[in-house]
């Protein structure tokens, strides 16, 4: 056997391997892993939400929102800022017309 024959033999492509469901099984495996990952994330999120509401009960959260709205309602600078935004918006519309 000379070098050229050996080169030709070595550079011949590898014998083709029939798929026979290999790609489909692999794709199914990937989808299964993805679903398992999604379920794990959902369980973790639910777990964290449960712990959050356990530590901070809804009644307290409602109270906090109530206090915040009272503060916002009695804030003079906030009222002035809102009035300025509404007035400038009206002025711009009037000028456009």
């Amino acid at each position, binding site marked *: *056997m000379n*070098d050229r024959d*050996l*080169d030709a*033999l*070595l*550079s*011949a*492509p*590898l*014998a*083709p*391997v*029939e*798929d026979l469901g*290999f*790609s489909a*099984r*692999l*794709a199914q*495996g*990937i*989808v299964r*892993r*993805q679903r398992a990952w999604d379920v794990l994330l959902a369980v973790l999120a639910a777990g964290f939400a449960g712990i959050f509401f356990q530590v901070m009960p809804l009644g307290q959260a409602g109270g906090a929102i109530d206090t915040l709205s009272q503060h916002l309602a009695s804030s003079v600078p906030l009222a002035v800022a809102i009035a300025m935004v509404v007035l400038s918006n009206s002025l711009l519309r009037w000028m456009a017309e």
Partner: protein
Amino acid sequence: MQDEDLARLAAAGDAAAFAVLVRRHQSWLRGFLRRLARGDRALADDLAQETFLEAWRKAAQFEARGSFAGWLTRIAFSRYLMEARRRRLEPLDAPEESEAPQPADPDLRLDLERAMARLSLAERAALTVCAALGHSHEEGAEILGMKLGTLKSHILRGRDKLKRMLETGS
């Protein structure tokens, strides 16, 4: 669509794009691993599956500087090395098997596979990556994690041994 575009889609979580890559590359990759595993089809297919799963997980790490096939070959080779170490199959530089000579087969391809199986892992891998898979010596050295000079000497030694074996039919 090019491999690199599909790999980019796979990195963004597109399983359908990755499935195209698997269908496109499964044949040669399994053939490569069969040659490394000296014809053990079950082991080669298990490792091919692990290679693709690792490629899916690490798709975001693929850089389009090299070819997708080269990247896949690198993962497959490192998987085979790990498995060979775990099963104590063969170290990278083990000498070839010294079994009794086999009669020559009229089918040269079959002869080549038999002769290949008697080379060291490094010689088999170097010859396959650079000849059958068509990578340059530089790419081959990077894929197999060897120095260029080491790769070239594995190729030369492997070729000499193959030539002798194919000539004498042993």
